[in-house]
């Protein structure tokens, strides 16, 4: 097992290198000057000579492969350069926002598990009942709606209409809250983005749990459990349900990239001060040091998410160990 983990960790290195190479090349070989945005012809904020000087200082006048190895060397020393926009170190920009993204994503996963697994369970046990049909319809709607449009609906109904929850940011601006009041304030700001982020996941997980349990209920050991006279409640809880969770673990590996992808849109819609919104605004401003940082951190999250899912799978299903 230890060897397997080590091998997988080592395989992550070439993967991350390839990803960094692709995004670096795209940004540096694309037509257009990365500094063009900062030269304002009206205000004459910078003379051409000053621009050349800045370009030289930033290393932008060197060949792309030299710049890449320079970036790589700095990255290995934990230095991602400075944001062109805010002039702050990229690591500081990203890591100050990362906890907010993890908070949003973590609560979204929690909500998904808490809602989807019972829904799928009931759908499977009471197959073809009214509840099952409602859950099926709900799941189809959840899968088909674009996340950002659902977010707009939520804002319109619960924020603009009913005034139940705020729709922008993470805290009420201008109120210096502390202690429990501050926690309540943040929680109120979390409600809508978490719902928008998790609706698709809830739909997928509920469907998956339903079919997983239905499959397990056909297995011989479930028939044996019933044959020995066990109450249906215990057959499902002790035998069927626990085994139906095994394939769900693979879904976790798919959910983490989904949540990373979703965070760009949902954080942008709700003005959530996280890494996703930083990523989108850095792309819109062509702030390439920040883009590189966000790319690498997202890649790391996706890749380690896959690894965690695979490890969990081996952990819950001992048959995988040898394979």
């Amino acid at each position, binding site marked *: 097992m230890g060897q397997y983990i080590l091998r997988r960790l080592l395989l992550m290195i070439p*993967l991350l290198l*390839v*990803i960094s190479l*692709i*995004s670096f090349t*795209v*940004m540096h070989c*694309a*037509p*257009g000057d990365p500094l063009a945005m900062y030269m304002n012809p009206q205000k004459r904020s910078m003379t051409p000579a000053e621009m050349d000087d800045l370009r030289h200082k930033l290393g932008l006048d060197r060949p792309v492969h030299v710049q890449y190895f320079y970036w790589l060397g700095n990255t290995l020393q934990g230095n991602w350069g400075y944001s062109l926009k805010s002039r702050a170190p990229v690591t500081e920009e990203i890591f100050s926002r990362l906890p907010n993204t993890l908070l949003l994503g973590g609560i979204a996963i929690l909500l998904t598990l808490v809602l989807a697994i019972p829904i799928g369970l009931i759908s499977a046990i009471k197959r073809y009942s009214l509840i099952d049909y409602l859950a099926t319809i709900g799941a*189809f*709607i959840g*899968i*088909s*709606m*674009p*996340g*950002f*449009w659902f977010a*707009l*609906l939520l*804002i*319109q109904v619960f924020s*603009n209409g009913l005034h139940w929850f705020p729709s922008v940011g993470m805290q009420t601006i201008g109120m210096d809250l502390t202690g429990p009041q501050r926690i309540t304030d943040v929680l109120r700001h979390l409600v809508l983005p978490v719902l928008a982020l998790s609706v698709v996941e809830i739909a997928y997980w509920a469907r998956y749990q339903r079919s997983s349990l239905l499959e397990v209920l056909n297995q011989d050991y479930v028939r044996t459990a019933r044959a020995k006279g066990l109450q249906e409640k215990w057959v499902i809880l002790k035998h069927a349900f626990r085994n139906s969770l095994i394939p769900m673990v693979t879904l976790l590996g798919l959910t983490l*990239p989904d949540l*990373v*992808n979703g965070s*760009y*849109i949902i954080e*942008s*819609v709700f003005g959530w001060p996280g890494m996703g919104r930083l*990523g*989108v605004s850095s*792309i*819109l401003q*062509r702030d390439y040091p920040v*883009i590189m940082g*966000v*790319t690498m951190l*997202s*890649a790391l*999250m*996706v*890749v380690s998410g*896959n690894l965690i899912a695979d490890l969990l799978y081996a952990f819950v299903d001992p048959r995988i160990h040898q394979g």
Partner: protein
Amino acid sequence: MSEIPIEREFHENHAEAPHSQLGLVWRQFRRHKLALTGLVFLLVLIGVAVLGRWVMPYDPLLQNPALARGMPQSPSSQHLLGTDALGRDLLSRVISGAQISLSVGIVAVGISLLIGITMGSLAGFYGGWADNLITRTADVFLSVPSFFLMMTVNAYLRPSIYNVMVIIGMFSWMGVARLIRGEILRLKEMDFISAARALGASPSEIILQHLLPNALAPAVVAATIGIPYAILLESSLSFLGLGVPPPAASWGNLLFEARTWLNMAWWFWLPPGLLISLTVISFNFVGDGLRDAFDPTQRGR
């Protein structure tokens, strides 16, 4: 069955049961009510998109500032879905959005099928290092933060509808490749392939004439399921201002513009979102229906 007189059964068989493969698929597909409903919706939508200019009441790009006075105008008898803040007719823009979103979805999936089928056939047929290389490449593509890379590439290449199509296609071929690879692996050991080999068919003949036609059904299902996925991606990119560039109206673009007027112009943001959802759900139902229809074990049920 035994109670039915033989004569009538004979008659029915002639009238009802077509002997072609396609006829069998269609007969099975028809039983799937949701898939049929989805198909009807999609046919209407595609019809409207193809007719385009003939059914649009106005030019979707035509501005009418005097009418709008900087505010979206609510639906009226002249403008059935109202106008946006520049006085452009929203019904025409939604129809033009259908043209753009559908063509992005179809072309992007076409590209992903082309890459996926090529990669999958090569990997499955040749095995060995080709299989290894292709499978590893697919693994890389599966574990990159694809949406963020799509945004970056699109922003740096100057957003255009063609870039959106190519980028979405390039990042979504892996599923098709895996599927085709599996089908080819399964088929290539069968007798009819050995027969083709014995008759001296070249590898390209075997792949194109014997293997791929037999792997067509899962590819068609994958394409049907892939289109809504591509449409969702396009609308998400456009919604962030990193997809189809304005003034063209894709559904995602319309929502990007409508966002500012969320609280006051429901006619602006409701129709594009509903259309995306209905299109996506219809393609999914049709895909489900096709999957069942192609599956011989489902027949006669």
